[in-house]
């Protein structure tokens, strides 16, 4: 397997992870290069969100290592873990804004929790971050008043509030209209280019993410089955990769969930 992603900030080595005795990962190896956009793609149910939780230390692997900046996440104390997370921002699928705070307070939240900055400075930072995502005008609105795309942008502003070194995007494009999608994609790209933030994007929007990613990993069956630049993936000979990249209904990933024989079940020959 080729790897053209040098100098990794996050490294996942031979990770095995079980959920309820069902293997989610079975020898997973991923290297996330510093200062680049890395896409982690895969069909639904391949544990993409689980992967993110492993990187952030919300879950610990049953075997193998997850290292961030060379440190094993599983062996960190709670304080070390929290210190590491301060250097990370994470954008959740639906934004996960705190519903009882308005937009301004949501972005100010990490600052208020972790710093004793004067109110004036906090306001300055919050407005700068909101301006960066183009939503400075919404600072008084409550999260319930925002559209899905806007909520995600506010959440992005919030994850940037502490000036993180890594931002993790969990399905940043899921359920968005094309315009919002374009906005988010541009934001991810710009943040990466301008600030040199390492970006990890988990998604199954192959083409959109492929257009901005520096390198991609494709997961299936708890393993990485292909990696490299998006163009290389498209040329990969693996039939699963082909099916995923081209969006075909039938292929190695079957259309039908395994079940008894169709005809026999219709004729009532299968015990209920």
């Amino acid at each position, binding site marked *: 397997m080729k790897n053209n992603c040098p100098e990794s900030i996050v490294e996942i080595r031979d990770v095995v992870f079980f959920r309820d005795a069902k293997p989610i990962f079975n020898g997973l190896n991923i290297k996330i290069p510093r200062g680049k956009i890395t896409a982690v793609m895969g069909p639904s149910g391949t544990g993409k969100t689980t992967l993110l939780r492993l990187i952030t230390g919300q879950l610990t692997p049953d075997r193998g290592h997850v290292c961030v900046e060379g440190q094993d996440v599983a062996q960190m104390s709670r304080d070390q873990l929290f210190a590491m997370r301060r250097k990370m921002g994470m954008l959740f699928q639906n934004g996960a804004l705190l519903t009882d705070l308005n937009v301004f307070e949501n972005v100010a939240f990490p600052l208020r929790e972790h710093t004793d900055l004067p*109110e004036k400075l906090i306001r300055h930072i919050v407005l700068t971050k909101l301006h960066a995502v183009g939503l400075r005008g919404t600072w008084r609105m409550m999260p319930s008043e925002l559209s899905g795309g806007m909520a995600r942008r506010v959440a992005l502003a919030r994850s940037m509030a502490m000036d993180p070194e890594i931002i993790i995007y969990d399905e940043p494009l899921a359920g968005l209209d094309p315009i919002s999608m374009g906005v988010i994609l541009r934001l991810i790209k710009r943040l990466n280019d301008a600030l040199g933030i390492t970006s990890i994007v988990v998604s199954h929007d192959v083409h959109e993410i492929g257009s901005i990613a520096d390198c991609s990993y494709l997961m299936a069956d708890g393993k990485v089955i292909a990696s490299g630049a998006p163009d290389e993936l498209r040329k990969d000979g693996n039939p699963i990769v082909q099916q995923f990249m081209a969006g075909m209904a039938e292929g190695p990933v079957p259309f039908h969930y395994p079940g008894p024989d169709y005809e026999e079940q219709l004729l009532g020959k299968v015990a209920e």
Partner: protein
Amino acid sequence: MNLGAKEIMKQTRAVEMGAGLFVLLGFGALFFLITQTTGLSNEIGNTGYTINARFENVGDLKIRAPVTISGVTIGRVTSIAYDPERMNAVVEMMIADQYRQLPDDSEAAILTAGLIGGQYIGLTPGGSETWLEQGSQIEFTQSAVVLENLIGKFLSSVGGGN
């Protein structure tokens, strides 16, 4: 731009106001319960002096039963014990400090408040010029009236009349 901060401040203030009013009302209610539903005269506390009296029979008398004089509560029963040597009951009672001047020849009787009320100790002042003190004993006592004995006496006297 300051409007947002002001609005939040206003909101915070309203919350603080509401919580404050609630807590004050709660304290008020607690105060009401403790002072207005309970008789303060019930609580003579631990300041006072203890005297005791011996009774043949204390009947239904309970610890904490009131001790009264002329119907005014001046103290509480603090302990009731049986003295096996003299074969009678020893009742200790605490009298509030402001009632220091009780004649030492006063009489103590166990009385009943109403038909179904509890029993209490009624003191009747004597004529002595010296007062009861901490640890004094009341000499003159009158035991509780036990209903069964009373009825028995009444029946036998009726029977005797025939």
